[in-house]
């Protein structure tokens, strides 16, 4: 669509190739591990080989004898200058908040818990010296199973706390669930397990800490999603005054939540740099990261769904056990609660009853992983909808139609208490069904079943929504979160007409430089190429709340938009003066102020910027700048939605699953860059499908991580995944001026239940009603065997 008056094509909506790419495709990258500074030393960390033990004795002095070793520290050596690692989300008043020293002092509580630190001249020397450290461990019983952990007499992860229960968080809305349940014709009960996942950002974490030397500040380079939050928290943990600490997120190679964290190694780096007065680097090996970088998911979900015979939902009861792991990291306890409001999904019902209990175990702590609480919720309700359809002999799309919020019912306040501003589930679903060829696939499915084909076809449906745009600060207050949910942007109009956008978001693959350029170029009427976007350095961009939770566009992008509007407002005053006209008489289009009725009298916004640079001719009282900043506190969450359809072929003889087709129609509101949006959807789908079919962090009964290397944990490769057919509907959000909703997590949230629903759908005629994730050939084979032995008289029809 071209602007009729100016001939300028709007930037928002264009599939611009990314500005970020040039450096990345030529290897001119700045990953944290690439950074080197004069005098750099290397840190290696000795980690507990045991899940739970008392440190009886530890001696690091033999390590000091090793060649190249400069220093070695125990937890006690470092404890003096270092506080406990923070949890910013104490979700209840009586939550159990254990101490979490960056290096364990008396007790280790998961394999990989740090026990000592070696500093040496190079990474090989540091790693070698670890084996010289003497540690005597007195083994303590591991705590690995959440239900057993809550039972009377269980060994305790934190003995001083007297319990493994971290918190219990209830929510009951609508009518009384028990009463509603009485009215039900059908009550379905299911237990689903959200297996533990390892996020696997391709760039391992790394930290470079530089003490004051040629600069008066400490500088911390970290492979993080949240440089601004890290700065505040590191000031608290290390005692380095915040104004003397600069945090930089250089190029960051993916995060998916795993770098939304305040990590012990950041504190260790700063503490060692302070002790030695030397810059230090730590880079995790992948296997080390599997123990030291937080994990995701890990819930047991007990669900009860009450419905009428004609498929209308009456109520939903959810009982969650959520594995916290050994310690509470930055938002560990809050992650399951991000799902608390989303279990009812897009459906109407009369009662909703939710309880979540957080449980400590002797495993790596969990925290946000792409979707964070919302994939778990979506999985549960979407699996239950399919179970209900099966129970009632109803089509799985039809049962959803009977219950979802109609497009004419928005804004709609759900039973979970959220107000969904907009959406159109009908149109996304209809579009998806058509692209998918739903009816044809159903008839093929029937034929295969009739002829007893050993390769069964299954069709999985997932009609999801999610809450994005974290978050309105007042809601965060009500949820007892320790910070606000705003985002900052500022715009500098440079004298030569170029533009700098400073954003508090901290991209690590999402393409903010490109998208924010598009947003700013449209409002300011300047060329896309003339906009530079700066981010990820607290010295350049002092204020920010960083990147996670599909918030960046909805909060940070909107902040850029509003800051640009403020620039135009300020420029209008100056332009009015320069053009000797009143502000009301000025038009602004395509970067040009012109006087209504006399189009020859005009000034470009760049000319106005230059006029404020010289400032030779500004009226009294007018500030000589048109630079502006804006801090956006969103008024509401946003609610992307969509319909995902998956067809799988399941070989009942081998248990192998092949995804035959995957169609999704997502509604993420207005789209700034369709190419980037499509890429986000693809990547999200891959991770959601990986949970359904491939990935699981497995511990043995001693508490060792069995899937402890990339060779044992199945991150899918290109050959494991299909092509996706993606499309969109566009129902703008009504709660922000761009109409955007966020897209970072949609694919992950929607796809897991679509795939598992498809697998179960394929096997249901054989008596299978669930397959635990990941749906590996072995699990499918076992599910079929169990179903057969449960119904011997029916044989293997």
């Amino acid at each position, binding site marked *: 669509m071209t602007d009729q008056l100016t001939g300028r094509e709007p930037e928002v909506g264009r599939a611009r190739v990314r500005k970020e790419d040039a450096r990345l495709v030529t290897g001119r990258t700045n990953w944290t591990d690439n950074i080197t500074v004069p005098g750099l030393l290397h840190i290696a960390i000795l980690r507990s080989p045991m899940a739970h033990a008392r440190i009886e004795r530890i001696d690091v002095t033999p390590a000091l004898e090793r060649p190249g070793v400069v220093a070695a520290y125990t937890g006690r050596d470092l404890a003096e200058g270092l506080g406990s690692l923070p949890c910013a989300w104490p979700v209840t008043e009586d939550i159990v908040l254990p101490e979490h020293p960056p290096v364990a002092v008396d007790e280790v509580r998961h394999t990989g818990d740090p026990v000592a630190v070696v500093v040496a001249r190079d990474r090989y020397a540091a790693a070698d010296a670890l084996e010289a450290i003497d540690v005597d461990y007195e083994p303590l019983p591991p705590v690995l199973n959440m239900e057993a952990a809550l039972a009377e007499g269980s060994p305790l992860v934190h003995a001083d706390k007297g319990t493994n229960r971290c918190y219990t968080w209830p929510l009951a809305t609508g009518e009384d669930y028990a009463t509603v349940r009485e009215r039900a014709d059908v009550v379905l009960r299911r237990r689903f397990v959200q297996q533990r996942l390892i996020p696997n950002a391709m*760039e391992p974490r790394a930290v470079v800490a530089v003490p004051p030397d040629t600069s008066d500040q400490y500088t911390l380079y970290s492979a993080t999603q949240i440089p601004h939050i890290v700065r505040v928290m590191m000031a608290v943990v290390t005692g380095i005054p915040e104004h003397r600490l600069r945090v930089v997120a250089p190029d960051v190679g993916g995060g998916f939540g795993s770098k939304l964290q305040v990590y012990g190694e950041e504190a260790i780096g700063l503490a060692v740099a302070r002790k030695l007065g030397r810059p230090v680097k730590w880079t995790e090996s992948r296997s080390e990261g599997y123990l030291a970088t937080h994990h995701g998911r890990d819930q047991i979900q007990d669900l009860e769904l009450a419905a009428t015979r004609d498929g209308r939902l009456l109520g939903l009861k959810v009982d969650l056990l959520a594995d916290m792991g050994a310690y509470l990291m930055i938002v560990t306890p809050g992650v399951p609660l991000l799902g608390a409001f989303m279990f009812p999904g897009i459906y109407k019902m009369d009662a909703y009853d939710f309880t979540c209990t957080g449980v400590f175990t002797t495993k790596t702590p969990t925290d946000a992983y792409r979707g964070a609480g919302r994939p778990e919720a979506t999985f549960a309700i979407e699996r239950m909808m399919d179970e209900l359809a099966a129970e009632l002999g109803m089509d799985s799309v039809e049962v959803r139609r009977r219950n979802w919020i109609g497009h004419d019912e928005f804004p709609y306040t759900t039973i979970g208490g959220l107000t969904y501003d907009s959406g159109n589930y009908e149109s996304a679903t209809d579009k998806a069904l058509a692209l998918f060829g739903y009816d044809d696939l159903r008839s093929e499915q029937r034929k295969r079943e009739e002829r007893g084909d050993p390769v069964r076809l299954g069709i999985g449906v997932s009609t999801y929504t999610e809450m994005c745009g974290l978050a309105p600060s007042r809601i965060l207050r009500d949820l007892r979160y320790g910070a606000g949910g705003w985002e900052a942007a500022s715009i500098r109009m440079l004298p030569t007409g170029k533009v700098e956008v400073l954003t508090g978001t901290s991209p690590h693959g999402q393409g903010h430089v490109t998208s924010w350029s598009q947003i700013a170029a449209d409002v300011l009427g300047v060329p896309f190429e003339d906009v530079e976007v700066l981010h990820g350095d607290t010295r350049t961009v002092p204020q920010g709340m960083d990147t996670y939770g599909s918030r960046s566009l909805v909060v940070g992008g909107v902040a850029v938009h509003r800051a640009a509007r403020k620039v135009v407002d300020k420029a209008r005053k100056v332009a009015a003066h320069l053009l000797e006209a009143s502000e009301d008489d000025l038009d602004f289009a395509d970067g040009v102020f012109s006087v209504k009725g006399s189009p020859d009298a005009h000034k470009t916004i760049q000319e106005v910027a230059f006029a404020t640079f010289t400032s030779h001719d500004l009226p009294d009282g007018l500030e000589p700048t048109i630079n502006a900043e804006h801090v956006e506190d969103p008024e509401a969450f946003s609610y992307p939605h969509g319909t995902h359809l998956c067809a799988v072929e399941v070989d009942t003889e081998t248990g192998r699953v092949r995804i035959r087709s995957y169609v999704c129609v997502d509604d993420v509101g207005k789209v700034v860059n369709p190419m980037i949006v499509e890429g986000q959807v693809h990547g999200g789908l891959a991770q959601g499908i990986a949970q359904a079919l491939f990935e699981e962090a497995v511990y043995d009964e001693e508490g060792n991580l069995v899937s402890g290397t990339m060779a044992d944990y199945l991150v899918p490769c290109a050959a494991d995944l299909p092509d996706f057919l993606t499309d969109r509907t566009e129902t703008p959000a009504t709660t922000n001026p761009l109409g955007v909703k966020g897209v970072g997590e949609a694919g992950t949230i929607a796809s897991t239940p679509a795939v598992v629903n498809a697998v179960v759908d394929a096997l249901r005629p054989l008596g299978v009603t669930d397959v635990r994730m990941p749906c590996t050939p072995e699990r499918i084979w076992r599910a079929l065997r169990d179903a057969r032995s449960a119904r011997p008289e029916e044989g293997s029809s």
Partner: protein
Amino acid sequence: MTRISVKVDGTAYEDEVEPRLLLVHYLRDRLGLTGTPVGCDTTNCGACMVDLDGKSVKSCSVLAVQADGGEVTTIQGLASADGEWHPLQRAFHEQHALQCGFCTPGMIMAARDLLRENPDPTPEEVREGLEGNLCRCTGYMNIVRAVLAAAAEERRHQAPEPGAVAEHAEPSTAGSGAPV
């Protein structure tokens, strides 16, 4: 310490190295060629791929001494001397085949090897050919598109029709919009 001489991205180097030094650490820590990253410690991810004497190798599984007398090309040596990108670099950019870009050097080096062996692969052959390279961001679909687009461009380049000008890769047809 062992003395090695190796040519990397067109420059000849002679160095004393520890026998156990990995090629990737030689490139990164000694030569400062940090365009080749390390993504794992079990030779699974492929992020570290470089070309050694005409074959792509995982440089985390090769010792620097094994490259003695050899010639290495990294992602940083792929563009032509006048800075013109390799068709794969261009295609990855145009097809949005990278997000964070951490896997990209390895993907491009692996794809280059793949296309040398099979200049006209099917999408399935591309997927199988890249089995040793992991990407956590893209879901691979755009990577497959990019490799096919680069293959098409290279074929056009190899055998231009009379009067035809080698064009950029075809824009993607599926999905929500061709890049501009």
